[in-house]
């Protein structure tokens, strides 16, 4: 049987098996009635075949219509209510960046450790996945966790899970993505927190994501305009993440990951009020992973976090 390896899994399975039970009952009733009638009223038997009793008319129709509607709405409420908590991403979570491409999964831990087609996570810790694709649509599906989320090019999508059983689980790409779709698989390894810490320490460490972003910030020339000493008029990036930005057309957007990413790749799309639209596009100059690192750096540039650094 499929393991229930995440905190979400039992809730999903409860609804799944509840629906199985309901289906068995309905199939039993419909199948039983069809069989009974088929035997009792097969041609040639002496069963009574006169007009239907008066009660078998509109009242019965209205009765079973309302009853079915009630059952349907109950299941809707039950399933939707179970999903609501999962829509909210946990505030404190281990944040893992995932970049999908034909046909591999590239994973970055916040400490800078990278993996391909594999993800190591500690048990009992909420893990948030920030995902994007370099080419076509992929989907990050882990049956043992009952999670699945499409990974889109040009956008970030996210999902989360909290593993509750140590072990190795399948990761499947569950959106058809071309030739080697069936080979775009991987393994999620859930470890005890100490083992995870040991594993992390053993991995070759690059700079952490934000640090890598800081280097790129200079290397790609961003600092020439957005840096603290820059003399060119460009919006400051300090405290930008999560704030409200007023745009040239007067509208407001929240500076989330998608906004930051779009402004790096297509700066002309949402121009900050009061600044000329002079920034060049970094599309094709910064790779998908570099954009992820830059966004991580900009996110780290808020008062509280930079004090802590």
């Amino acid at each position, binding site marked *: 049987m499929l393991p229930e390896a995440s905190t979400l899994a039992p809730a999903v399975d409860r609804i799944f098996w509840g629906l199985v039970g*309901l289906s068995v009952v309905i*199939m039993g009733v419909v199948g039983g009635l069809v069989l009974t009638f*088929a035997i009792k009223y097969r*041609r040639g038997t002496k069963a009574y075949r006169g007009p239907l009793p008066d009660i*078998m008319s509109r009242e019965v129709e209205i009765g079973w219509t309302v009853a079915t509607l009630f059952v349907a709405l109950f299941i809707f409420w039950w*399933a939707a209510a*179970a999903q609501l908590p999962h829509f909210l991403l946990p505030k404190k979570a281990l944040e893992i960046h995932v970049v999908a491409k034909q046909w591999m999964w590239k994973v970055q831990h916040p400490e800078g450790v990278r993996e391909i087609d594999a993800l190591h996570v500690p048990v009992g810790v909420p893990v948030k996945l920030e995902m994007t694709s370099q080419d076509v*649509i992929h989907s990050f599906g882990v049956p043992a966790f009952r999670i699945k989320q499409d990974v889109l090019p040009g956008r970030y*999508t996210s999902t989360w899970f909290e593993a509750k059983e140590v072990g190795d689980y399948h990761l499947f790409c569950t959106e058809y993505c071309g030739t080697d779709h069936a080979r775009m698989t991987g393994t999620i390894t859930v470890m005890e927190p100490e083992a995870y810490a040991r594993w992390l320490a053993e991995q070759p460490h690059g700079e952490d994501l934000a640090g890598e972003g800081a280097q790129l910030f200079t290397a790609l020339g961003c600092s020439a305009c957005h840096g603290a000493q820059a003399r060119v008029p460009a919006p400051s990036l300090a405290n930008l993440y999560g704030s409200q930005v007023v745009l040239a057309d007067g509208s407001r957007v929240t500076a989330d990951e998608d906004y930051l990413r779009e402004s790096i790749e297509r700066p002309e*799309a949402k121009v900050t009020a009061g600044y000329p639209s002079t920034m060049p596009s970094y599309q094709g100059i910064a790779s998908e992973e570099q954009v992820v690192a830059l966004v991580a750096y900009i996110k780290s540039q808020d008062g509280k976090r930079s004090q802590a650094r």
Partner: protein
Amino acid sequence: MRSDDTGLLAREPGETSYLTEGTTLRSWLLSTDHKRIAILYAISITGFFFIGGAAATMIRLELFTPQGDFTTADEYNRLFTLHGVIMVWFFLVPSIPATLGNFLLPLMVGAKDVAFPRLNLMSWYLYIIAGIFTLTALLLGGVDTGWTFYTPLSTLYSNSYVLLAAFGIFVVGFSSIATGINFIATVHLLRTKGMTWMRLPLFAWAMYATSLVMVLATPVLAMAMLLICAERLFGLPIFDPRAGGDPVLFQHIFWFYSHPAVYIMILPAMGVVSEIIACEARRRVFGYQFMVYAMLVIAVIGFLVWGHHMFVAGQSPFASMIFSFLSFVIAVPSAIKVFNWTGTLYRGSIRFSAPMLYALGFVGLFTLGGLTGLFLASIPVDVHLSDTYFVVAHFHYIMVGGAVSAFFGGLHFWWPKITGRMYSESFARFAAITLFFGFNFTFFPQFILGYLGMPRRYHEYPPEFQVWNVMSSTGAVVLAIGYLMPLGYFAYSLLNGKRASDNPWEATGLEWTTNSPPPKHNFLEPPVVLTEPYAYHDWDEAPGGADETTQDEPA
């Protein structure tokens, strides 16, 4: 030539039918007779059905083992794309409407032909032209995008013959629109004297509801396909995220057609089954009016549930909630129909003919298909099951277990009317039972595979899934035998079958009041309708009330 004494053309001297009016190829290819066009369609969709079936056979062969040993990854991807494209657009969508619908709708409403006979012929030519485009794409090397053509894979990344196939689908859409327009106009304008709306057979109502969906939804498919062509050919950035496009937009447009398309496939099946069950149980359809309203409600709400294909595609949670809610609502009219078919059997006098076996099989398979739809409408369960074999099993229960079973049932039921010949009843019953078991054997294991997490469109899979795949592939052999059998006994029936009487099942409905096969203009005199539909009860004629004895006709 009329005295020719063998085969289809043999009739009593002096008697003519639509089959004997002209025997040249030209008299068929340029015919505007709805009955002949139905035959043209029937032959063409049978061809496509076996092409799509051959692809399915190879898919099941490949999945017999976990390794990709029978086909390469690319070949496999082209096979399931071919299977989907052919089966959906060149078989399922036209199956019942363009063959049985074309043949029967004018007969059922008491008309000489459809409202626009030449448009009807054009629709068949469009279908053939579209088929040629799609088959060319196939012969050149195939398409590897899946029948869903998701962007940006289809527009920017695929190196296969997407343009040709997409254009073929664009064209075939117009053939369904033409059929839809024809049927709507026919039902509105050509009902004979006394044929009021509430006297229409449920099959005619089903054709009407289906036509509404065809006419309103198919243009959106045309848009989707044109936009794909525009982005592939001219680089028009509609779906390309690097140029500000939105790849998910395509899914919205595509499913706005493709979900209603499911109802294009299943509503006609519901109509067929209603006719067969009423006749073979000798009962008026239980809750006739509710059956009509249920079909219309399905046709309308069917337009509002497309987002349930996109619960994991990154759409807003609020949208997902609403689509989930509406998907549960649409389950209600479908359930009502199942209850009413069951109720129709109550106090009936049931004969287990081949069409009835297909119809009862339909009720069971459709019910299971519908119930598993509830799983996929529940957001958390759908997240787990989407893009797994559970989905594959679910829609095959609806489209194959449901629509194809009903199509076969209808084909058997009206075969004597269409060809004027009877078929071997025992072979036909045997085929119906083989199909039912073969179908369950093939597709039920896929529900389990899906729950265990096996993704669709995988030609290689982890070994723990093998046992269920072997079961499924074995069942497919039985299923294939079930599908091939009718070819044999129908061919025999055409050549040597016993003459059919005008009304071999003693059914009600205007189509049974004319000759088998019908004359060129359907009726010698315009018929007049005096009774309610499905007047199968003997006490209706004797106003004295219920008669406790049963009236059994020798079959």
